[in-house]
């Protein structure tokens, strides 16, 4: 009888080890004095990899992309990249977990703090699709120039946009103030006549309506939102 029980237990353990982590996992981390709610969504990615996102209600974290998911036996390690990473350093959120019956349990790490967590599967995975770049309207291509004011100083802007097939359009976004800054561009798309360009490194987003001779809207730089007007330049794109 005891042997039979051990066999059943071993089978269950093997099943747990082999169970794929796909799904929505809901629960919380037990921080000292409070529970931190967590929602992890994990799904198969391309070529045997895993993709996922993290939601933390109350922390303005919704569908944040998981930068790394590693499976080994019944162990799963997850890195949520810069999520809840203090600007003073200390590291963002990581999870070291193992399958335990119908749950995954383990330790969450944030800024060097560690807390136990337990999640149970509550449904299919709902990975937040990341915003994608896409070709802009052909009439939006070309060189646009203008200026905006920030901190009492004028800044001159040159924006060159060119489609690159189905790939992310090529964008040169150059701001000349006290110094010249070429913004690295992460996201470019256009829908319903609204051009959207993001530079995450500089915390800058252009969102503006495109017409034949002008791009008019707002430039968000950190917490500042600045009106911006760009006009089509006669100069050719370099």
């Amino acid at each position, binding site marked *: 009888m005891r042997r039979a029980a051990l066999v059943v237990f071993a089978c269950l353990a093997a099943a747990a080890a082999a169970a794929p982590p796909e799904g929505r996992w809901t629960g919380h981390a037990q921080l000292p004095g409070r529970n931190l709610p967590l929602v992890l969504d994990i799904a198969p990615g391309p070529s045997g990899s895993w993709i996922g996102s993290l939601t933390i209600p109350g922390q303005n974290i919704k*569908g944040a992309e998981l930068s790394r998911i590693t499976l080994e036996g019944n162990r799963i390690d997850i890195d949520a990249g810069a999520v809840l990473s203090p600007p003073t350093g200390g590291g963002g959120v990581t999870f070291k977990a193992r399958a335990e019956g119908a749950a995954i349990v383990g330790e969450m790490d944030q800024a060097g703090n560690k807390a136990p967590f337990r999640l149970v599967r509550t449904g299919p995975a709902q990975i937040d699709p990341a915003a994608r770049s896409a070709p802009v309207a052909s009439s939006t291509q070309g060189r646009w120039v203008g200026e905006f004011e920030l901190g009492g100083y004028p800044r001159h802007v040159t924006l060159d946009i060119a489609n690159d097939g189905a790939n992310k359009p090529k964008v040169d976004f150059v701001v000349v103030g006290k110094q010249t800054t070429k913004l690295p561009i992460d996201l470019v798309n256009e*829908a319903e006549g609204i051009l959207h360009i993001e530079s995450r490194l500089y915390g800058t987003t252009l969102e503006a309506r495109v017409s034949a001779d002008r791009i008019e809207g707002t430039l968000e730089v950190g917490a500042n939102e600045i009106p911006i007007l760009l006009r089509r330049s006669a100069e050719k794109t370099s």
Partner: protein
Amino acid sequence: MRKISAVLLLGFALPALAEPMFRGDAAHTGLYDADGPREFHRVRWAFPTGNRVISSPVMQAGTLYFGSDDGNIYAVEASTGRQVWKRATKGPVPGTPAVAGDTLYVGSYDGHFYALNAATGALRWKFTTGGERHYEAKGLHGMAPAGQTFFDLYDIYLSSPVVAGDSVFFGSGDGHLYALDRGNGSVRWKFKTGDVVHASPAYADGVLYVGSWDSYFYAVDAKTGQERWRFHGGEDPVAHNQVGFQSSAAVVDGVVYVGCRDSNLYALDAATGKELWRVNNAGSWVITSPAVADGRVIFATSDSALFHIVDAKTGREIAKQQGKAYMFGSPAVARGIAYQPVTNGMLEARDAANGNLLWTFRTEASKENAGWALTADGRFNMPLLFASNGGEASILSAGRQFSVGSMFSSPLVANNTVYVGSTDGNVYAIE
């Protein structure tokens, strides 16, 4: 025929008559011609967002729309809880969207009013108001020091837009009621009040009805922006506690019903603003927006936690039930059942005829009861709720209250399901 095809494709019946805007229609009756659950069966799904959901879900063609204080506006499949799209803003979105045609309208605490493609979330236009802010006053609610200005933590909503004709109307923290062209966001007119406008304008027969934190309630011509009349609510120059219209009005059969922080529910003649009757609640705020059904007005109070049913013509009490905690979220009435959200993290279903409790849903956060914010039977645990070593008791207590998954959101009833948001960050589909 096209509608029937859509229903078949979705495998999900469309709600009847409820318009996709705050309180189910432009007059804000809070009345839903749909079946809702008579008994609690289960939570069909819970959709997690990154912060509390004060906004109330609205539905069009099987898609739910709502805002979250995580700064996003969401579109979610009503049948499955799967996200269709989300659109980021730079501030909390505690107001309720309105959907008209294929465009969604809603404001954000970032000071913008957005028009989005309802199918994709793509921006159509955004309008910049004079900026959002909370109601604030010196020595608010008796907080010390009396000369210090405090913002009101319970000024928790933003004005929800109402759509009528080619215009969309909403109030703003800059003190104005706005009328914008639905197509391009240009200003048709703006009407200035004396303080923040976070109540939601109701529309009936060419007139907008909305209250302001200046403690006046206004009737404004929807075409011209000209004032028709104004009604003066209570004043409280010392503690600023018994002042201001936070409740949104319902307009039915020529009568405006609206709650006020001066602890009254008022019935006003829609044509003249003359007071017809009032129900006084002895110092307890009336934040809920009243529902009007079958000649009855249904509303609830904050501190006294009373669920009221009164005669719409006379204000005479028909039924009064003692609840457990503050009620800010507004009752939705569907075929004889009133669904009342409560700040203790519960949704109560009550008989709309007599207020008797039919069933209760309780969030997990409310069951967890972190820090014993609640008593064992679900009332706020005042000694621990307001515990503080300093002068910040009000701020700490608000955080403790919200930690139990408070329901400020007003329910949407459709397809035997109640949809409602919670401060635990979820929107729940309860059946």
